[in-house]
């Protein structure tokens, strides 16, 4: 077993933190001929809560398993605090991993599950017992110490799995969709618990999810992945508000995409002929602008004729805090609006855009079904 010192992990960039920084340098992962991760560079800061977000099959788990050492990269390096760990075996890396299906050992009690990492480190009995108690208190499971995993609910099992991972004081904690088997309400509570625990222990976390709401909620930074590549890295706000491509814009949050072409730096003509004017940003230049993008909450509903374009309310869904409308324009394009106002299905209304970005092409999904 290598110690943290062996790995050169003592030199902290951030003295208040117990974590480490992670750098990927041109990292590539292959399964036979299939390239699961294309050359990727990535820097995760010490103490950061970093999320890998993307649709199923885009390679998030693969990248995470490579960080843990379960998969060896084909090319490139992984650095933990400037120390190359690419060829170090998983049992020598000393980092925590929390799995989607909890992966608790059904033949051991919760306490024995949690104690396992310390037993592997040959700690003495008294220390193990004390640390197990403390760690179980940390995740509020002290009453379940002698139960077997099968006797606990899903949420409790995942908390036990979390305790098992953090008991060895890992500088880096990896999560692979830890909440996706739980019900919605528990998911929200538990993700806040995870985030609080991570801040308190001051360790670095890499968190994999396909749930964009979860990612936006708890991350310091997010890397949006697509087909084995990182499409964008940024804070949740950057990812949501200034997506670099229609793909990111489409995957994170809801959005309206309208086909047409930019006629000037502040005017966009829809395929139907209508022209929308106002401040807009461009992915490359106005000359390439083909798709107008806008988030539903930045669009407002006004009286007919007073907005940028008119349409008919096609669908209304009441969400409580606000109402979601699908407004169909004259040429059949659907615009998604979230607002607090009163309009009935079938009403003729005006639409006003306030924040617009013009992209060069449509995301793949929207090419087939252009209904939103």
């Amino acid at each position, binding site marked *: 077993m290598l110690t943290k010192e062996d790995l050169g992990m003592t030199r902290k960039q951030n003295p208040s933190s117990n974590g480490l920084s992670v750098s990927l340098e041109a990292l590539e992962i292959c399964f036979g001929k299939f390239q699961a991760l294309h050359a990727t560079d990535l820097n995760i800061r010490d103490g950061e809560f970093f999320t890998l977000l993307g649709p199923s099959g885009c390679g998030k788990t693969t990248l995470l398993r490579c960080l843990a050492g379960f998969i060896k990269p084909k090319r490139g390096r992984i650095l933990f605090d400037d120390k190359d760990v690419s060829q170090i075996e998983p049992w020598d890396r000393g980092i925590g991993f929390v799995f989607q*299906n909890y992966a608790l*050992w059904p*033949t051991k009690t919760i306490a024995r599950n949690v104690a396992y990492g310390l037993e592997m480190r040959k700690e003495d009995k008294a220390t193990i017992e004390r640390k197990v108690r403390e760690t179980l208190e940390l995740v509020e499971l002290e009453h379940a110490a002698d139960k077997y995993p099968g006797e606990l609910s899903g949420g409790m099992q995942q908390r036990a799995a979390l305790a*098992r991972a953090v008991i060895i004081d890992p500088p880096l904690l990896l999560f692979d969709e830890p909440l996706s088997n739980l019900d919605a309400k528990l998911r929200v509570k538990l993700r806040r618990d995870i985030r609080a625990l991570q801040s308190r222990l001051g360790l670095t976390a890499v968190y994999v999810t396909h749930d964009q709401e979860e990612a936006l909620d708890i991350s310091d930074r997010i890397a949006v992945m697509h087909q084995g590549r990182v499409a964008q890295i940024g804070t949740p706000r950057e990812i949501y508000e200034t997506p670099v491509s229609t793909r990111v814009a489409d995957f994170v949050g809801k959005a309206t995409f309208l086909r047409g072409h930019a006629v000037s730096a502040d005017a966009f003509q829809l395929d139907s002929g209508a022209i929308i004017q106002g401040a807009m940003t461009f992915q490359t230049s106005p000359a390439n602008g083909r798709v107008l993008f806008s988030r539903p909450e930045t669009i407002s509903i006004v009286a007919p004729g007073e907005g940028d374009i008119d349409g008919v309310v096609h669908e209304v869904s009441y969400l409580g805090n606000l109402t979601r409308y699908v407004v169909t324009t004259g040429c059949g394009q659907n615009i998604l609006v979230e607002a607090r106002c009163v309009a009935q299905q079938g009403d003729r209304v005006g639409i006003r855009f306030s924040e617009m970005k013009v992209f060069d092409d449509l995301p793949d999904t929207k090419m087939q079904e252009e209904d939103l």
Partner: protein
Amino acid sequence: MRNSWKIFSLFCLAGAILLVAVPQIWIVVSAFRQDGGAFTIQLRQGEMMLVSEDVQRFIPRTDGQEDITLERPDGFAASVSNKGDNRIVFKTSEPLTIDPSSAGSRLVLNSDNASFVVEQTVPMSIFGTPTAPVFEARPVDGAVEITHAARSFIRFHDRALSFSFGNFKEFLSRSVYLEAIKNSLIVTIASTVLASIVAVPLAWLVARYSFYGRSMLIALITMASISPPFLGAYVWRMLLGSNGLLTAALGLDWTIVGLHGVIWVIIWLIYPLIFLMSLDSFSSIDPTLRESALNLGATRRRAFFNVEIPTSLPGVLTGLYMAAMAAFSDFGTPFIISLDLVILPKLVYTQFLNETGGNVSIASTGSIIMLIIAMMFLAMQRVVLAGRSFASVTSRKSELDRPGTALKWLIYGFGAIVIGFAFTPHVFVAITSFLEWRAGTVTTVMTLANYSTLFTEQLNAVWVSLSTAFAATMLCMVFGLSIAYVIVRKRFRIIGPALNGLVMTPYIIPGTVFAIGFILAFNQGPIVLTGTWFILVLSYFVRMLPFSLKTSEAALYQIHPAVEDAAMSLGATPVRVFLGIVVPMMLSGAITGLTLVFLHSATELSSTILLYRPPWTPMSAVIFQNTISPGANFGYAAAMSVLMMVILYVPLAYITCSRKKTLV
């Protein structure tokens, strides 16, 4: 670290080649080798004649008092001429030399393509002189002059082996061998069909309906599935043989001895296998399948034929295959029911043990014929199953219906009959174990003598049985778990499938054939094991490993790989992960399979009977010997059978109970 599993796999592969492939290759080699044949002449008062009953491969051309000439189909000729004065001259178409190893009454004469062993047997006469009879040889230009006793039989046996299809030709042309093949097929097919007529409907009823005593019925049939196999035959013969207890009491002029008796006994041996496999697959039909068929307007009968039968067919067919294999390779039943009946396992056994006449080749040929037939059964099962999807694993247990009164009594009647027939031998054996036997017949005198003899004289057999079965079970556990892990998780490209194929091969090898391969491979050369404790252990281990491997694989498929990753990320090396995490998890699933390995090893007969040599005599062999030898004390065998039943049913009760617990 990474390579240790690969090294282990290579080690297992080497072991599998040695223990599975090499013995089978030996059988093939020995089946394709034929010796040069033999003939015997008789000499009496200066007269010479050919003993026509013992002429093998040679064809007599002239048979006179002065000269006997014979010829083999390959053109090789031999002649013996009587020179008088107790001298004969033996001459062949090739010049002969006298081998220096010749001594006493055994001469070895070599030519280019032949190697004759010439042996003299002198009939004993009451007034005979105790001096050794004369038997000497002297070369006479290419021929050999032999001086012999005045009255003698001289056997000429050409032991030179040559590659040939002769054994197969002989096997497939002599009527006794064809009869054996025919009888084996009749017994196998008839008993499997009849057993399935009993077992499949009962399994269906038990799978569908709930009634008082249901789990008791299942437990009893499970018990019946591993009763000591040869007891049934003996008890049924005692009850229904000519002058049997029942036939005599009823005054019937009828006997169970014959092919029909073998079939009758085997039915009650194998129906539990079909019942249990069918019950499993009938109960695992997803009830939604049937309900949706009914909702779509299918009648109950259509739903039965279109949905239930196809989805449960794989399980039922596996049961039929296992039952057919058990019937086909059963050695004890025909042996006990009738000594005259020719049937493959018995024929192969007697040919192999019959030392004179060089019949090992014929035994090997018979073994290969048995293997081919076994493979045909497997192929038939595969062909029927091909292209069918397997029963969907149930997500929710079917609700059991309550049967109507008539149906309920039908189930009870049916159950009582099959349980009654299956346990008749057990009950009868238990009773006779307390009765005194005199000169091979039972009396009504109660006694505990059988048991006291057992515990004073034959505890060794108990120890041999338990220790060999236990050692084989431990080996099955170690290698079953680790080979399953290699096959399922490591997926080495060539080693994996090769290992799997070799380890699973004994599944289709009948016990008799397996034992012959073991003896041929391990009674000479670098590894000599015949007659030891180890050969029993190894044969049980190799024969049972397929079952252990399959249950271990099934257990491993239930374990998510993340469970191993979790341990690894916490600092456990792969070896520690396997031993500390995977093995305990697999064991809880594999324990049922291992218990069955133990029980089957402890009752195994068909390979044991060929492999054991005193003092390593297991209980099954003791019981068998006491059962077949005329006039033996069967009460003693009965007492040992009762002890064996205790040994069998205690662990079985344990696993049935624990299985019930896990199902809840």
